[in-house]
């Protein structure tokens, strides 16, 4: 039995189960899934793809790491420019913590940089050797030791300094660019003065702002957006996928900081999210809970009372909620006010089909959105559920299973992996609905192909989910034989790997904008020898049976022919499509 079968047998679970149990070790990593690689954008070797996928192009930083890096950067600047740590820190902050930018600017025009940052190399105000100085804020006179000044030398009494710095710290991160209070001066007030003159609480706040600045001002780092998470992510810019997963297990897109959304691009996601916030709460609710007044067409919510509706002035139309007919027609002869039999009988006769149909038409565009939104939201909640199940599995079930089957937990990792895959698949699937919503209606071939792929993905995931949930339960509760459990292991691990590959290919295909539908020549690569085997049983056709897909030119390709229905590139000698069984 060949592995190619099962992804295409989506509608035929029985035959699939049967195939499965009769198979032996079908899914070794390296020769499993040619049939699912419906698009060969990369190499044929799925292992390579897997490895490159898992290579991290980001680093997760703990608070200690951040502080360490900050210290290192400051030390570098200190030693290269021979300036104080205080000045180095202010310089770095000014240049968004980019060491090479600091070097560049400094060596290009030191005076200009000094002026911009407020690092004066000579004092503007020379205090006398002895005597008293007037504070520039409270105007009192103080002995020298009770006053302080920034590099400029303008004296202020320590009490006023404390109040001045504290006010600024409590105003927000602007305190990091604090200057001497003399408006024309501009000398910077750095961390040294803050440490000397402020309360512990203010020092803490200041350090916090400094830490945040290191992450937020730097183009290469961002905070993890999960609530309550203190990790930051450093990302290698220009290195492929934006998806990152924080130590807190939250996955997000580094580019737009929305939750991870491959295969959909950031722009579509923001459109979709905007649409959801604008419409789901309003239009969906209106759709579900209201009917338009038959006369003035304003939507009406019926939240209590009888079927006798009276529209708001100025319309004041009286009608029946059930049949939307005029209320004056209702009475004894229609079976009494509170039982509109007319609706029932009319429906039976089909008299209302026309108006109902028109109402449908009007709602159509909204329903299209609702259709995608509902599925998007359902996958979202399924994902939450799967996450909870995964947690339950890790904390409770795994130990129990280990006990029952006398296997160390390390050997049960395949179950966790399966659940992780389920969670990931739900995420991808969810976003495919946003993708589908924005797929242009007139690109019929793409739509059909997309719906086919999505349907297959859903079916594949369902199988995996079923196996990881239902079948596992039997082993949790009964003492099944060792052999049976080993079979189960093979099956679940195989399903996980197959599903992973399928979804990775799906993601790539969608990210390419399903370009293979246009450039069908590119897909000719798929007619490798592996594909030729064992797909004759396939019946997973989801196409709508239309033949509007580009028809003629596909047949003359010397390497094979593309199916009109599903666009699959078949070998020359095949008489019907190996994917969907459609005749040539």
């Amino acid at each position, binding site marked *: 039995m060949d592995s190619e079968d099962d992804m295409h047998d989506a509608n035929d679970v029985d035959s699939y189960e049967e195939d499965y149990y009769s198979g032996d070790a079908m899914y070794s990593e390296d020769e499993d899934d040619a049939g699912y690689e419906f698009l060969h954008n990369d190499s044929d070797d799925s292992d390579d793809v897997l490895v490159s996928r898992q290579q991290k192009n980001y680093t997760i930083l703990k608070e200690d790491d951040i502080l360490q890096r900050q210290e290192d950067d400051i030390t570098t600047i200190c030693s290269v420019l021979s300036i104080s740590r205080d000045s180095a820190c202010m310089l770095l902050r000014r240049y968004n913590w980019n060491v090479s930018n600091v070097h560049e600017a400094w060596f290009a025009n030191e005076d200009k940089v000094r002026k911009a940052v407020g690092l004066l190399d000579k004092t503007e105000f020379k205090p006398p050797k002895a005597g008293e100085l007037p504070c*520039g*804020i*409270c*105007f*009192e006179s103080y002995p020298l030791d009770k006053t302080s000044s920034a590099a400029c030398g303008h004296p202020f009494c320590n*009490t*006023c300094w404390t*109040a*001045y710095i504290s*006010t600024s710290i409590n105003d927000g991160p*602007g305190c990091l660019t604090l200057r001497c*209070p*003399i*408006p024309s001066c501009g000398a910077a007030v750095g961390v040294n003065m803050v440490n000397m003159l402020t309360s512990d609480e203010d020092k803490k706040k200041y350090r916090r702002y400094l830490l945040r600045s290191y992450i937020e001002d730097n183009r290469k780092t961002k905070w993890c957006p999960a609530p309550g998470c203190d990790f930051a992510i450093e990302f290698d810019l220009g290195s492929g996928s934006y998806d990152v997963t924080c130590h807190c297990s939250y996955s997000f897109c580094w580019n737009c900081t929305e939750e991870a959304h491959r295969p959909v691009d950031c722009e579509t996601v923001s459109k979709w999210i905007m649409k959801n916030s604008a419409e789901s709460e309003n239009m969906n609710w209106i759709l579900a809970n209201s009917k338009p007044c038959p006369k003035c067409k304003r939507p009406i919510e019926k939240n209590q009372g009888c079927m006798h509706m009276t529209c708001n002035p100025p319309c004041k139309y009286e009608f029946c909620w059930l049949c939307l007919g005029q209320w004056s027609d209702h009475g004894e002869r229609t079976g009494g006010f509170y039982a509109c039999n007319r609706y029932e009988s009319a429906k039976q006769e089909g008299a209302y089909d026309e108006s109902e149909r028109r109402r449908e038409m009007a709602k159509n565009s909204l329903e299209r959105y609702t259709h995608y939104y509902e599925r998007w939201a359902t996958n979202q909640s399924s994902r939450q559920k799967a996450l909870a199940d995964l947690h339950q599995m890790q904390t409770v079930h795994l130990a129990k299973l280990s006990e029952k089957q006398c296997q160390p937990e390390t050997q049960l990792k395949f179950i966790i992996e399966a659940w992780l895959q389920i969670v990931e698949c739900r995420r991808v699937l969810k976003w495919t609905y946003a993708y589908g919503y924005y797929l242009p209606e007139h690109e019929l071939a793409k739509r059909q192909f997309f719906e086919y792929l999505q349907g297959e993905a859903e079916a594949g995931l369902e199988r995996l989910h079923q196996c990881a949930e239902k079948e596992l339960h039997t082993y949790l509760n009964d003492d099944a034989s060792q052999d049976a459990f080993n079979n189960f292991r093979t099956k679940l691990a195989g399903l996980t790997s197959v599903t992973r590959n399928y979804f990775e290919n799906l993601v790539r295909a969608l990210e390419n904008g399903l370009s293979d539908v246009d450039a069908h020549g590119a897909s000719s690569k798929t007619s490798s020898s592996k594909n030729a085997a064992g797909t004759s049983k396939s019946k997973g056709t989801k196409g709508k049976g239309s033949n509007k897909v580009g028809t003629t030119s596909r047949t003359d390709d010397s390497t094979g022919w593309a199916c009109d229905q599903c666009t699959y590139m078949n070998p020359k000698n095949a008489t019907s499509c190996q994917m969907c069984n459609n005749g040539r």
Partner: protein
Amino acid sequence: MQASRARLFKEYKEVQREKVADPDIQLVCDDSNIFKWTALIKGPSETPYEGGVFQLAFSVPEQYPLQPPQVRFLTKIFHPNVHFKTGEICLDILKNAWSPAWTLQSVCRAIIALMAHPEPDSPLNCDSGNLLRSGDVRGFQSMAKMYTRLAAMPKKG
């Protein structure tokens, strides 16, 4: 509270001395409340405000001088950065660019400078700002002069 009082008292004494020094500004502290001040400033020469005398009201917060005083025109004035109805002034040093080294006296000086150099790009009075932005300097000047004459000059006869 104590600090702001002490500082305002210093300013009060300073004002008494400076009265002669700066004839364009006349700062007066409220008899019963040191946190309320009024000022009379002369419209700067070679501006449509020349010849007018404008009254300002100061309301000083307790955190003064760490927080800026609130200032508004009591005299009606046609100026892009002054609200035509309330007299509110849009000036950076009265908002985020405040420094405790400023005094009420120096705020008055800054307001006189603002009268001479309006900032039509961040207007509180859009009509006035639009006149300047569209390049209608004559239009702006004649409006401003009219209001100066109507509101900021002593009535003759």
